[in-house]
């Protein structure tokens, strides 16, 4: 268990790099077996407290990681990476995951070169005006994150009007939906630290 007095939690959304500390015990690196390494997918993830915690259930972690990678990294076709990251950042901003929002706003900035717009999303919230196409992606992500789910035909129409085809709309649905998975783990099993 991490010493609470070493944690310096951020109190605003930021694109800075943050750490994350677990509230329950991750597996010690020395106890990882080949079953665990299969769950980690990338061996280097054994250095991360978050992944050594999730690897307590290696089969679920492996499937989750491979789902994540294909939704975000498979850019052979479909929505540009920047806008998949925008969906992740907007979902995280709306759910309130400061850690996830920091990572994915940063990625969206890197791929879009629109760092100031991402900062406005973080500072002003999901109502920030980022132009028609990004507004449609943010609004669809927010509608999907609501419980009960508020996503409807109007979101599809807006995404279409903004120029997205059906495969790109599915990338928005997948990316935003995935962060309703990721946010809940990051928010509830530990906390970010500056």
């Amino acid at each position, binding site marked *: 268990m991490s010493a*609470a007095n070493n944690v310096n*939690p951020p*109190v*605003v*959304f930021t694109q800075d790099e943050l750490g994350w500390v677990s*509230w*329950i015990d991750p597996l010690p690196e020395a106890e990882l077996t080949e079953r665990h390494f299969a769950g980690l997918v990338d061996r280097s993830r054994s250095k991360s407290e978050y992944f050594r*915690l*999730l690897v*307590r*259930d290696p*089969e*679920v*972690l*492996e*499937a*989750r990681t*491979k*789902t994540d*990678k*294909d*939704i975000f990294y*498979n850019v052979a*076709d*479909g929505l540009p990476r920047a806008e998949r990251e925008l969906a992740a950042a907007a979902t995280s901003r709306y*759910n*309130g*995951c*400061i850690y996830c929002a920091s990572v994915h706003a940063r990625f969206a900035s890197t791929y879009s070169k629109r760092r100031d717009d991402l900062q406005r999303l973080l500072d002003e*919230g999901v109502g920030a005006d980022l132009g028609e196409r990004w507004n449609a992606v943010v609004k669809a992500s927010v509608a*999907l*994150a*609501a*419980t*009960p*789910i508020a*996503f*409807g*035909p109007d*979101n*599809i*129409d807006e995404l279409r009007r903004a120029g997205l085809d*059906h*495969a790109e*709309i*599915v990338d928005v*649905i*997948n990316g*935003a*939906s995935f962060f*309703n*998975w*990721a*946010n*809940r*783990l990051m*928010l*509830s*099993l530990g*906390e970010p630290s500056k």
Partner: protein
Amino acid sequence: MGTKDIIDTLAGIEPDSSLDAIRGRRMQARDNAQKSYLSLFEPIDAGDFSLLERAAVALFVIGLHREPDVAGFYRTKLAATADGARLVEAVDVEIARGETSGPYGAFPAGPLSVENKAGLIYRVSAERKPDLGTRLVAAFEHAHLLVFRPRDAASADMKALLAAGWSSTGIVTFSQLVAFLSFQVRVVTGLRVLGASLGHTANAGA
């Protein structure tokens, strides 16, 4: 893409339809969303989180989302799980008691505090506690937090689960199950809405 997976079934996507073809462009994601479901509901080892507990939490979580077709699938699943049928009514009553709208909750004290939004802090009713038992009572209360106000989560919530008899590994799998279902129900709903806009009928076969 051949056989329908669970998301196809719940979203009403037929083989060789245009949505099936689009899903086929992300085969690794499609296969691993299915593997996630299977590893959560047909695990190698259910020692830290029983199959009955998994099915009960799943119905509770999906019921709170008010997507009746998906909830119907998980209600059938709980009823078909050993010892599960006796819990269906209690879970349905608790779903009705827990219904609200999210996300809400508090941010860390500071500039974001103006965005704090108060809402229901759900607790299992005293009448249902004997049916559900200590572990499921703690699980339902935490699952409600995860569904509606995940930003309220604190280290004390982990201690509450540990005190109710959950192991650290059990907490990880339980958290994954709730978080995965939050993903699955959104993909299903999103694809159903898109499918309907393409003029397909989208009746879930489950």
